[in-house]
C-alpha cells in the first residue's frame, strides 16, 4: 500500500456497515466500496475483516441476507437492515458521537 490508511477501532466497522445499509440493501462488495467512497478513500475495508463482520452482525439479527441479482446480472448475496438493526444503528451512532465529542474535547484542550 502506497499511503498509510488508518485502522478502524474495534467495533467501528459494525457501525459503518449498519450506516451503509441504512441507505438501502447492498451486497458485500458494494458495502466495502460504499464505505470507501463515503470516507473519500481515507479508509480501506479489508475483505478478511468485512465478511466475518457481516456474518457476525447477521448472526445477531441486525441485518438479514437474501440472494438477489447484482447490477451486472450476477447472483449476489444482498444484506439489508432489520428493525433491530435500525435501533442498533441509532444507539451506536449516539454512542460514537458522544465518544468522538469527548475525545475531541480532550485533544482540543491545551
Amino acid at each position, binding site marked *: 500500500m502506497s499511503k498509510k490508511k488508518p485502522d478502524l477501532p474495534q467495533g467501528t466497522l459494525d457501525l459503518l456497515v449498519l450506516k451503509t445499509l441504512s441507505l438501502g440493501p447492498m*451486497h*458485500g*462488495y458494494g458495502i*466495502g*466500496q460504499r464505505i470507501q467512497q463515503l470516507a473519500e478513500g481515507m479508509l480501506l475495508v*479489508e*475483505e*478478511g475483516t468485512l*465478511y*466475518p463482520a457481516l*456474518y*457476525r452482525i*447477521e*448472526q445477531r439479527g441486525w441485518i438479514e441476507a437474501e440472494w438477489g441479482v*447484482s447490477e*451486472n446480472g*450476477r*447472483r*449476489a*448475496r444482498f444484506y439489508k437492515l432489520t428493525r433491530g438493526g435500525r435501533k442498533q444503528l441509532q444507539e451506536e451512532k449516539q454512542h460514537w458521537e458522544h465518544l468522538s465529542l469527548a475525545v475531541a474535547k480532550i485533544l482540543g484542550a491545551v
Partner: protein
Amino acid sequence: MLKRILTRARAVWRKEQIHAEIAEEREFHMAMRAADLMRSGMAASAANQAARRGFGSGVRMQEQGFDVRGGGLMEDITGDIRLALRILRKTPVKTAALAATVALGIGINTAVFSVMKAVVLDPLPFAKSKDLMVIHQVSKGESEGVSYPNFEDWRAANRSLEAMAVYATDSSTLTEDGQARRVSGAVVSADLFRLLRVTPLRGRLFNPSEDEPGSGRQVIISDTLWRTQLHEREDVLGHSLLLDGMGYRVIGVIPSALAFPVHSDAVNYWITVAGDAEPSPWGGSIRKSRGYPRYEAVLTRLKPGVTLAQAKAEMSVIAGNVAREHPGADLAEGVRLSAAIEDVVGRIRPLIWTLYAAVFCVLAVACANAATLLLVGAVARSREFALRAALGARPSRLVRQLLVESLVLAFTGGACGALLAWTLVAVFAKIAPPDTPRLSTVHADGIMLLYAVALSVMTGLVFGVVPATAALRRDLVGTLKEGARNLHFSVRRPSTMLIAGQIALSTVLGCSALVLTGSFWRILHTPRGFDPHNVLTAAVSLPPASYPQGSDKVTRFYTDLLEQMRRVPGVETVSVAQTLPLSGQNNSTRVEVIGSEQPQKASADLRFVDPDYFRTLRIPLLDGRYPEAADRSDQPEIVVVNRAFAARFLQARRPVGSRLHLGWGGDGPKLVAGVVGDVLHNALDAHATPEVYVPLAQFPIDDMTLVVRTSGDLAGVARTLRAEVRRLDARVPVENVRTLDDYLLLSVAPQRFLMWVLVAFAASTLLLAAIGLYGALSYSTVCRRHEFGVRLALGSNMWGVMRLVLQQGLGMAAVGLTAGLLLMAAAARFLSGWLYQTSPLDAPSLACASAILMAVAAAACLAPARRAARVSPVALLRGE
C-alpha cells in the same frame, strides 16, 4: 434462543449449502473487484490475482463464516461424538465390557421400576380412585373381614361416605359347552360398581333390589370371560350362565381392566349377596350372623369435601355404638378405614421397595465400575490431553470430550439395558410371589423407555465426571515430562474410593442375601407338624346341582374316588380334606366345651377330613385314636383335636372323652376321640392355633381337596387322578394340581423371591467389583513397574513385590468391606421384616459373606500381583 438453536441445527443439516454459499459470495466479490481493477486499466490476469490476494486465506474465512452462521458448537459436538466412537471402537473388548456393565445396571433398574410402577405406584384404574376407601373390622390388631349385619348398621348410620358395598372373592365351576372349568369371581352388594364408577360395555349394573333374596339370580361378567368362554356371542345378555350347576342370568358385561377386588387372580364374574341369604343345609344365617365376617371388606367412597380423618372419626364412633348395642359382636377393637389402593398394594409395597433399593445398589456398582475403567483409560490418555492442552485446548473442551465419550457409552449401554429390561420384566412377572396384585398390568411402555433414557444420562454424567475431573487436575508439564510413570498417584485416591465403594455395596447385597438364605433355610426346616414331601394335592369340587349339599351322594363320590386311588401303584395313602395347611384357606367355628366355664369368645379352626388324612400328612397321634372309617353318619359324632386345642380348652380334664358343641360342623354333642400334633396351618412363621377335625362322613362337604402320598412319580399319579375323576363323573373338574411342597414354597414366596433376587444381585455386583479391582490393580501395577524393577534390582524378592500389590488390593477391599458392614448395620431394619428367627446382623452370615468377599478380592489381586513379581529389572532398566 429458540431461533439460535434452530440456526445451529440447520447448520448441521445444511452444512454443504452454507459452505457453498460462502464460497459463492467470495467468488462474486473477487469478480467485482477484478472488473473494477480492469476498468482502471489493470491487465486481466493481474487484476484477478490482486482480487484473490485481498482475501488472504480462503479457508480461514470459510471456517469463520461457518462458525458465525451456526456451525460451531454443533459441529464440535458431532465431532466429539465421532471422536468418541472412534476411540471406543479402538478398544472393542473394553467398550463391550463397559457397555454390558451399564446395560446390566440400567436394565435391572428399569425392569424393577416398571414392575414397581405397575404394581405399587399406579393409581387404581377407577375414576377419582383417590376417594375410594375400604373398611375392615379389626381383630387382634389385624384387619379382618366384615359381617353382613355390621355392614348394614354402618351403612345406615354413616353420613360422610357416599355409599357402601361388601365384597368377597368367590370361585365356581362354570359349565359351558359341556365343559367344566373353575373360574374366579366375587360376591358383591349392588352398589359396588356404582361406587367404582364403572360403565358396563353391555347391559346394566346391579339394582339395589337385587341384593334381596328371591330376586332371581343375576350375574355380571368380564369381557375376558365373554370372549374366552362365551365366544363373544352377541346374545350374551339374558344368557343363562351355569355356575356350580345353578343358572345365573347375564345382565351386564364390564371391562376386565375394571375388575374389583383387585387381586392376583383375575375376577371374571360378579353375583350379588342375595345368594348368601338363600337357605341351605348350613347356610342362610349370613344375613343375621354378626360374628361371621363373611365378606372381605366394605368398599366405599368419601363424599366430596370429606377428609380421611373425618371419615375415620365417624366410622369409629359408629363401630363403637354397634359394639355397645351388641355385646359379644366382634367389634370391640373397632374398624380400620383406609384408602382402597393401600388395601391392594400395602402388603407388597415393602417387598418392591426393598427390591428397588437393591437395584440401585447394583446400578451404583455398575456406575462405579464403569468409572474405574474409564478413569484408568483417561489416565492412559493423559499424554494426549496434556499435549492438546499445551497446544491451546481449553480444559472445558477436554472435559466435554470425556463427558461425550461416557455419554455415548451410557447411551449404548442404556439401549441394550432397555432391551434387557424388556425381557427382565417378563422374568420378574414370572418369579414374583404369585399373590402380587396387578402383575398382569406390567408392560414395557414409553415411560419405561423415558426412564431408561434418563437413567442413561444420569449414569453417563456420574461415571464420566470422575475421569473428567481427574484429567483436569493433572499438572501439564509433569505429565509431558514423566509419561505415565507417576500418574497412578493422581488417580490412586479416586480409584481407591470407587473400588471400595463397589465392594461396600457388594458387601451390603451379599450380607443381605446370606442372611435371607439363612432365614429361609431355618423357615424350611422349622418343625411344622406334617411331612409335605411326596404329597400330591388336587381340588375336586362337586357341582351342587347333581351332588346336593350334605347328602350321602357327596360322601359316596369321595369314598369311591379314594378307593380307586388307593389301588394305583405307587400310592401309599390317600385322603381328602377341605383346607390344606399353608394353602391360605382357613375355617373357624365357635367352640363350647360341655360342662365347663367358657372363656367369652372361644373359637377354633375347623377342618373336615377323611380318616386317612393324618396318616397321609404324617401328623402324629398323641392320645386316644385317629378317626376311623367306622365313624359314619349313623354313628356317634366324634372329633379329633390338636395339642393347642387341648391346652387351651381342655386343660382341666383329660382331653379324650371330653364333649364339645361346635358352631358349625353338626349340631349334636361331639366326643373328643383323640389328640394329634400341632400343624403350622396358617404360615410357617406363625404359631399353631387350636384346631378341631371333623370326619367328612359325619358332615359331608362338596368342595374337597384330594391328598395323595406316593412313593412314585407325581406326574403319573396326577394323570391317573384326572382319568379316575373323569371316569366317575366327567362334569367334575380337577383343579389346582400341585404338591404340598409347592404350597410350602408358595407360603414363603416373598421371602424366597427376595432371597433369590438378592443372591443374583449380590453375585453380579461381586463379579463387577472383582473386575473393577482387577482392572485398577493391573493398571496400577503397570504404572509402578519401574518401582518394582528398582526394588527387585535392590534385592527384594518376588514375594516382597507380590506382597506390595496384594497389600494395595486387599487394602482397598478391606476399606470397602468395613464400610459395607457399617452400611449393613444401618440398612438392617429394612431387612428384618423378611426374616424368620434370624437377626438382620446374623454373625455367621456376615462372617461368611465377608470371607467370600475377601476370597474373591484376593483372587482378583492374584494375577496382577504375579505379573508385578515377574517384572525383569534388567529389561526394565535397559528400556529406560
